[in-house]
């Protein structure tokens, strides 16, 4: 909606929007800044905004103490694996709901969403016992499966809404041309839904990356992702604001960068069928 407005109005908009944007972003900015301070400067009164001696000491302490690379790699594998696996299972399901709807389609969809309401804490023991039985404790495979299941309803719902927006005539035309079900799915539908799929993948990657209950409780050393990494910096002895900030920055930086680069994609696709 590019409307023509007076420069004065535009300037006002700009100032106001930037002020609010910076306000919302400030906690993250402050964390990043603090991560480059010494512990003493981090709690200095009055607080120092920029005029401090920038140091990388906190990062080297954190790197020395924890195997950051492994935590990061586990986070990537777990978030990525669960998202991809979820998509593989969700695409056909969403397709059939969107194009071969039955009376129960909506019920099924809403039921799927309701499985997300199971309180995680309440089922920790059952799941933990199951994981022991299946030998999945502290394995990336186990977490991939759990996070996939947690996010599957959201994935299906998002995909369903994108697929529904694809006009049926196109499919008819493809069928006329002799396309089978497989071709239809692979060459007609999916490409049209690529923006939707992309934003679905992104959103679920973010959700899986930030999931902090199962990833913490079902891992020990081998499969522990960044959520477990941060748990070792949360309240140690002595001054820790700067080290906490460094660890926090390291935990959120990868996803923040990914999010920034792909925000256009995310914004375009994140509708959940809310826009007709």
């Amino acid at each position, binding site marked *: *909606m590019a*409307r023509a*407005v007076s420069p004065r109005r*535009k300037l006002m*908009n*700009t100032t*106001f*929007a930037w002020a*609010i*944007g910076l306000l*919302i*972003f400030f*906690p*993250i900015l*402050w*964390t990043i800044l*603090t991560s480059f301070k010494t512990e003493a400067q981090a709690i200095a009164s009055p*607080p120092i905004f920029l005029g401090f001696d920038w140091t990388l000491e906190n990062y080297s302490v954190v790197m020395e103490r924890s195997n950051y690379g492994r935590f990061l790699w586990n986070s990537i594998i777990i978030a990525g694996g669960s998202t991809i696996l979820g998509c593989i*299972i969700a695409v*056909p*399901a969403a*397709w*059939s709901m969107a194009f071969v709807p*039955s009376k129960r389609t909506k019920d099924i969809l*809403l039921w799927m*969403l*309701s499985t997300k*309401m*199971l*309180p995680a*804490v*309440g*089922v920790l*023991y*059952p799941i933990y*016992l*199951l994981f022991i039985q299946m030998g999945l404790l502290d394995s990336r495979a186990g977490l991939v499966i759990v996070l996939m*299941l947690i996010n599957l309803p959201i994935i299906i719902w998002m995909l369903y809404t994108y697929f*529904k927006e694809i006009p*049926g005539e196109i499919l008819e035309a493809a069928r006329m041309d002799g396309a089978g079900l497989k071709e239809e799915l692979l060459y007609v539908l999916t490409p049209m839904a690529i923006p939707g799929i992309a934003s679905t993948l992104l959103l679920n990657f*973010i959700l899986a*990356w*930030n999931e*902090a209950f199962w990833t913490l409780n079902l891992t020990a050393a081998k499969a522990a992702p*960044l959520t477990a990494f*941060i*748990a070792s910096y*949360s309240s140690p002895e002595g001054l820790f*604001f700067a080290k*906490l900030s460094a660890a926090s920055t390291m*935990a*959120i930086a990868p*996803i*923040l960068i990914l999010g920034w680069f792909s*925000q256009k994609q995310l914004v375009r696709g994140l*509708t959940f*069928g*809310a*826009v*007709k």
Partner: protein
Amino acid sequence: MATKASRSAARVMMAPAVILLLGWMLVPLIMTLWFSFRKYLPLRGGDLGFAGFDNYTRFVTSSAFWPAVQTTLVIVLGVLAITVVFGVLLALLLDQPMWGQGVVRILVIAPFFVMPTVSALVWKNMFMDPVNGLFAHLWRFFGADPVSWLSDASLPSIIMIVSWQWLPFATLILLTAVQSLDSEQLEAAEMDGAPKLKRFFYIILPHLSRAMTVVILIQTIFLLAIFAEIFVTTGGAFGTRTLSYLIFQRVLESQNVGLGSAGGVYAIILANIVAIFLMRIVGKNLDA
């Protein structure tokens, strides 16, 4: 266009998702139900036999139960109210012509990428700490006594932290909805001399209702389960114990799995009441 063949194909294609989710729902549910009727105390030797409805009555008659339900609802409703109201305003603002729109948008959505544990830690320590927190410095600068946020204003503080995390999500969805608004209609209304507020309430808000429903539905699902934010900040003290935190205390801190499981069953019931309620609205609103 649905032929018989495509119907059966559709069923096959849906099967994996449905079976997996059914398993994911039923297996823990049945185990939880089983535990909830047992006297199951891991630290006292595990399963000590059938308990009848003891766990259920005990959980619900505990002095902590109703306050926990209330806290849960206050947090969910509080965060929903804040994120929807500010989300709409922010979406409208971001839709205005301005310089550097892309950058502003990035700034606004950034909190969504921060994991809940990190955001809780950062807010608790670097902002809300009554001695070294930034707010304390700010208050002192203006000559006021620093506030002990997490004890004196615990619930508002947690609602604020959670709202900060979810505001970007609401804003994003509402923004796409705002952008899809028919500008001709708006301009026509403007020509007719309809005042700003009227335009907002009669054209913009109805147009956003669908997006708002989606925001409410999705956020409710996640908000009913918030845990990390409370675990890190108050540990359930100062009236911030939600139902899921109460279950956590029963299962893990008191090591009474039977009692906690009964609580889990109550939480499922509560979630489903909310869900049915929500889905009635959403079902109506999402009929394509």
